[in-house]
């Protein structure tokens, strides 16, 4: 135990202290933040306050439209998302809308010259005739972007609809009532209890697990392999073996590197959480993102075990190869089960209880992802969860011991990659 602890310590400290680790840990979130915030910032930078002239047949209607547009632009519909909204919210602009109730040709010529000279940004030809024809035109120096024109047409339609209905004699309250949109929400029944939610939150949980597992395995698994190769190639292994067993070395290395990966993931998660959660929480699609403590525990257990299993597989690859290139050629052994799990995810989400899915979620190489998906979608019986985790833990331990054995015998052979029969023969050497 003492030796394992020393090795874990060394692996962890030597990695965490490197400049590249510190830079990467801090830089990636910074880059992500910049990538998320910059486009929105740029969009608002480009948008100065607009000065628009509304040309209507009656001043009263013009005022109604003006008010509606201004308030719509300000509150900017909490139900909508998209860059347009983000941009508007980021910096409320002081738009100016003038109303002009004089739709004559001479006025049109005047407005056109004002647009050309830059005195105003554009004008909206909203006469009764234009509305009757169903064809309203916005004139400006540049073509309005998609966000702008869809915003205008959506809001104008609402105002015009309102105007038409009130004109037909309906009271404004009745019109509001009529125009109120219907929102569909779905309710899931879990063990006889109603669980609210549109499914967006569940999807997010599963996606985060898949993404984290996949990237952690690919980032840090490979550094386990690299570190095994380094010890073999620098021949430091033989000195270590005079103090510690190869199983101790392997276990220590695995947990040490895993801890480095976890450190980075925790740092990133905290940073991402601080940045992303507030905006996620505002997004009604994820209103059911209420992470159950059980799900969180399952996430921890299956993520850790899966991460360790795949890292141990990388360690085995490191033990049987002599160069990184060779190791990378063997990576498919790791990537294939990961990809199969990813592909299976969709099926598991749809039908979490068919026998095939149940058994797939017991297979150690798939269970980290698939069992977790099942837990999130529809909690399976406890015995299945426990069995799956147990099989996973046993396989991880087995892979570790296997890797340690090959690792130890590997010191006797340098130069060429052993063939499969040779590896099998090595494993038979009871005490090498």
């Amino acid at each position, binding site marked *: 135990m003492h030796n394992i602890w020393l090795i874990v310590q060394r692996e962890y400290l030597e990695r965490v202290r*490197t400049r590249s680790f510190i830079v990467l840990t801090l830089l990636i979130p910074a880059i992500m933040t910049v990538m998320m915030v910059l486009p929105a910032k740029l969009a608002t930078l480009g948008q100065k306050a607009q000065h628009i002239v509304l040309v209507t047949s009656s001043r009263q209607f013009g005022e109604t439209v003006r008010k509606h547009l201004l308030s719509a632009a300000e509150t900017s519909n909490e139900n909508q998302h998209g860059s347009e909204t983000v941009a508007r919210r980021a910096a409320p602009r002081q738009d100016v809308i003038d109303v002009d109730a004089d739709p004559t040709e001479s006025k049109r010529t005047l407005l056109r010259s004002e647009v050309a000279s830059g005195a105003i940004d554009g004008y909206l030809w909203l006469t009764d005739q234009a509305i009757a024809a169903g064809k309203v035109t916005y004139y400006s120096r540049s073509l309005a972007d998609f966000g702008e024109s869809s915003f205008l047409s959506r809001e104008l339609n609402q105002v015009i609809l309102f105007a038409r209905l009130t004109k037909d004699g309906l009271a404004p309250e009745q019109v509001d009532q009529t125009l109120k949109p219907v929102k569909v929400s779905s309710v899931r029944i879990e063990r006889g209890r109603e669980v609210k939610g549109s499914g967006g939150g569940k999807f997010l949980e599963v996606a985060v697990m898949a993404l984290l597992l996949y990237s952690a395995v690919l980032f840090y698994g490979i550094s386990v392999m690299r570190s095994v190769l*380094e010890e073999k190639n620098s*021949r*430091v292994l*033989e*000195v270590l073996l005079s*103090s510690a067993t190869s199983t101790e070395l392997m276990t220590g290395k695995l947990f040490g590197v895993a801890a480095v990966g976890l450190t980075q993931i925790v740092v990133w998660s905290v940073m991402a959480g601080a940045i992303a959660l507030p905006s996620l929480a505002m997004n009604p699609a994820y209103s059911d993102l209420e992470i159950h403590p059980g799900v969180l525990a399952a996430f921890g257990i299956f993520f850790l075990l899966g991460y360790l299993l795949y890292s141990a597989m990388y360690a085995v690859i490191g033990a049987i190869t002599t160069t990184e290139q060779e190791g990378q050629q063997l990576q498919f052994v790791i990537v294939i089960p990961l990809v199969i799990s990813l592909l299976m995810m969709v099926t598991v989400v749809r039908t979490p209880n068919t026998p095939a899915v149940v058994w797939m979620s017991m297979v150690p190489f798939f269970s980290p992802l698939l069992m977790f998906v099942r837990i999130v979608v529809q909690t399976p019986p406890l015995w299945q969860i426990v069995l799956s985790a147990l099989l996973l833990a046993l396989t991880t331990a087995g892979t570790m011991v296997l890797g340690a054995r090959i690792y130890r015998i590997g010191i*006797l052979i340098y130069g060429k990659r052993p063939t499969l029969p040779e590896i099998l023969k090595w494993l038979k050497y009871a005490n090498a």
Partner: protein
Amino acid sequence: MLLLLVITVSLKAPIPLPSSAASVELSGVRKIYDEFVAVDDLSFGVKPGTIYGLLGPNGAGKTSTLRMVIGITAPDSGHISLFGQPFERSHLRRVGYLPEERGLYRKMKLLDHLAFLGRLKGLAGPEALKRARHWCEQLGLANWNGKKVEELSKGMQQKVQFIGAILHDPDLIIMDEPFSGLDPANAVVLKDVLLESAKNGKTILLSTHRMDQAERLCSSICLINRGRAVLEGDLGRIKAARGHSHVQIKYEGDSRFLQERRLVESFNDYGNYVEVRLAPGADAQELLRAASASARLTRFELMEPSLEEIFIEAVNGSNA
């Protein structure tokens, strides 16, 4: 240390050795890789406080033997005991090992690295650091304490590795080809440390294929060839048993006398001088007369055979 030790001179049949206080004891050890017999029926014992040399040509099985002693591999048959007890991993804390293939973590700082090796051998962190500092000073590495291993020269890395093997003050020091790759100045430093350790009662088991070094350092040797011991025991006694059967001759001129089959069994020309092995029953005086008849002699010395001669003779004998 008045304990008597049983040394097996004939190694053909393993004699079960009584458990003694020998630091290392091998009896009938055998190691086979696939079909290749790396070590075959090897037995020897190393007395505490001595320097013992494991000699042999490349591929003789020296490294395989040392790896079994340090527990990296286990013998397929036979027994190894350390400090008078059957091998146990707990013994390893009293053993320091310098493998033939040197290796360190390149990115680690020198002191951190040494402290790590020391702690693996059971030293407490601060103590390991203190000793590492002390040894770095002793071996002239003090200015490099904070550097990474990869910044050191090859020779310095060798010294670091050496310190790593002795940092925990082991009772038994096992070194596989300790002098290979060292320049003469550093080799002397290392040799002095080893001699000092032996004087302090530490046991040293080293392998080498350099006979001159073994001859100067070791009190006992085991000569192995093709995994088998061909000669084992106290070096002085081995040489004495061969008698004054060798002559060193330094000469100028005709070397015809070396071809006298009646007098010369074999000779080895070292450039500056020739070492001649006398034919059985030949008289050295007769060779002197023959040599002086044809060449101008500057030296003619009757002597014990050098270890190198013994080595070549033994290896040839066992290969035949």
